[in-house]
């Protein structure tokens, strides 16, 4: 970022899974405590805070989960610091990390924390109102029966027709990312899959099988940011955060984003523009190009996402990622550019609000060389973490090794 070089000096997770007896605040406190320990800090050292607010409040959690940061700070112990509660769906992680970065980059604060906690596990995503008048999300469920996987399946169907993605390609996404699942202490599903197992799993939304779509999980994550010039006080392995951006869509985007019933495509506007816009901004902030990226965490909500996001992240032609996948370019752990070396959403499941921070943390573990049995061997210097997003929003962060 322009004003100041920023460092990530503390990372902390609560494992992913299903934790019926724990509140989101409790899980958030675990993640914060782990991040503080990682940075050799105390809670009172934190000067400002941004928190991802839980989206599914109609299903449970209510106002305390909407004002989650305030709730977490109460459980950690009230210190009077500023706290912004941010609702940005799957892009929440990068959104609150961006808030933390901007707070430090402005010079107003030296130590900022981004924290998110989520209990998405155990249900289909559904509309959060009973209002057929203003809520297009309600309308799309009631009138078209479009679930999120149905949207992804429609996109996959079109992509298959346009670029020739095969059943094997789609299944290989799970096969490749699952290699890392058994090495990650925080993953929920520790199992390496074969292509045959993936293709034999039930068809959820033709053409996507069950194991080509991620589950929903509970999880929490926290990241501490400070200026690079004081990073060595807290860690031997600072990670520079070079760019962190949140994208919205462009008018004329030809895809019907989740929660909408229509779009108005315009010539020259490419689909998933919220993701392209977030990427362009993050690359610009970092002064990087796709050629610089050594390792990627992306939103593998489904096999469709994997291919689509790789095309965009690496600046490939439409369908370019299928070709590189077949060549082993994205293999975990030993591809040229390993993708999902954490195990990905396939091994973790989607914890909507927390997953963006978790992706960044997984990149940090790899850049630090701290990923243990899951460490990639390509000695990564620069990594990129991109989330997906509801309704046309998206988040990207670019990190580099700074030691």
């Amino acid at each position, binding site marked *: 970022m322009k004003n100041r070089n920023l460092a990530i000096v503390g990372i902390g997770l609560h494992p992913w899974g299903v934790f019926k007896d724990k509140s989101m605040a409790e899980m958030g406190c675990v993640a914060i405590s782990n991040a503080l320990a990682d940075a050799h800090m105390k809670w009172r050292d934190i000067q400002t805070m941004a928190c991802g607010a839980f989206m599914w409040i109609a299903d449970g959690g209510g106002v305390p989960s909407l004002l989650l940061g305030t709730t977490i700070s109460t459980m950690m112990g009230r210190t009077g610091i500023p706290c912004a509660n941010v609702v940005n769906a799957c892009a929440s992680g990068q959104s609150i990390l961006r808030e933390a970065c901007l707070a430090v980059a402005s010079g107003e604060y030296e130590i900022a924390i981004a924290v998110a906690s989520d209990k998405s596990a155990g249900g289909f995503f559904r509309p959060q109102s009973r209002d057929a008048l203003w809520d297009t999300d309600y309308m799309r469920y009631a009138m078209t029966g479009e679930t999120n996987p149905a949207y992804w399946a429609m996109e996959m*169907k079109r992509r298959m027709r346009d670029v020739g993605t095969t059943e094997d390609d789609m299944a290989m996404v799970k096969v490749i990312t699952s290699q890392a699942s058994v090495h990650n202490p925080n993953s929920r599903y520790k199992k390496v899959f074969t292509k045959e197992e993936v293709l034999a799993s039930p068809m959820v939304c033709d053409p996507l099988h069950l194991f080509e779509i991620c589950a929903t999980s509970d999880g929490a994550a926290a990241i501490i940011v400070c200026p690079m010039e004081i990073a060595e006080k807290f860690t031997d392995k600072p990670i520079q955060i070079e760019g962190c951006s949140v994208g919205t869509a462009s008018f004329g985007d030809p895809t019907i984003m989740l929660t909408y019933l229509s779009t108005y495509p315009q010539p020259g506007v490419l689909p998933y523009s919220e993701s392209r816009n977030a990427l362009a901004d993050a690359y610009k902030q970092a002064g990087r190009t796709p050629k610089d990226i050594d390792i990627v965490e992306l939103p593998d909500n489904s096999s469709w996402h994997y291919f689509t996001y790789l095309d965009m992240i690496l600046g490939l032609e439409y369908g370019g990622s299928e070709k590189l996948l077949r060549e082993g370019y994205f293999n975990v752990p030993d591809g040229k550019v390993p993708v999902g070396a954490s195990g990905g959403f396939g091994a973790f499941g989607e914890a909507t609000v927390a997953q963006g921070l978790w992706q960044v943390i997984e990149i940090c573990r790899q850049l630090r060389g701290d990923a243990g049995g899951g460490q990639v061997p390509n000695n990564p210097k620069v990594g990129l973490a991109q989330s997906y997003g509801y309704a046309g929003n998206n988040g990207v962060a670019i990190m580099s090794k700074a030691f």
Partner: protein
Amino acid sequence: MAEKNKVPRIEGLFTWPSDQPRLIASRCKKCGAASFPKSPFCTNPDCEKNTDNVEVIELSNRAKLYTFAIQTYPPPEPFKLEPFEPFPIGMLDVPEGLRILGMLTTDKVEIGMEMEMTTKTLYEDEENEYITWAWKPVG
């Protein structure tokens, strides 16, 4: 047994009652940008936000299938399809320039196919059949 009333599951999204129902959208008189459901303002960022510029239109009942998929398991509430059976869903391009979401009446379709708007019964109670818009192959 008397025939039940057919009632849209959500009112105001398509013309009803009608032999040839059409989706109700809006269009900007200045730039032509269309929205479904209708929007009080033109959604073109370069157009002035003046509700007087926006007119309500009925969309063509013909469309071209852009893509589709099969929803195999029952979606969550508020969706209701009784009895439930797997159903196809698609994105369709209408001549007014919009790409629209909707259920299809059959999975015997191909990308690029010409489709026609109709209605589909989702469920019924003692008084009414609740319907939505749906698309079927032309002919």
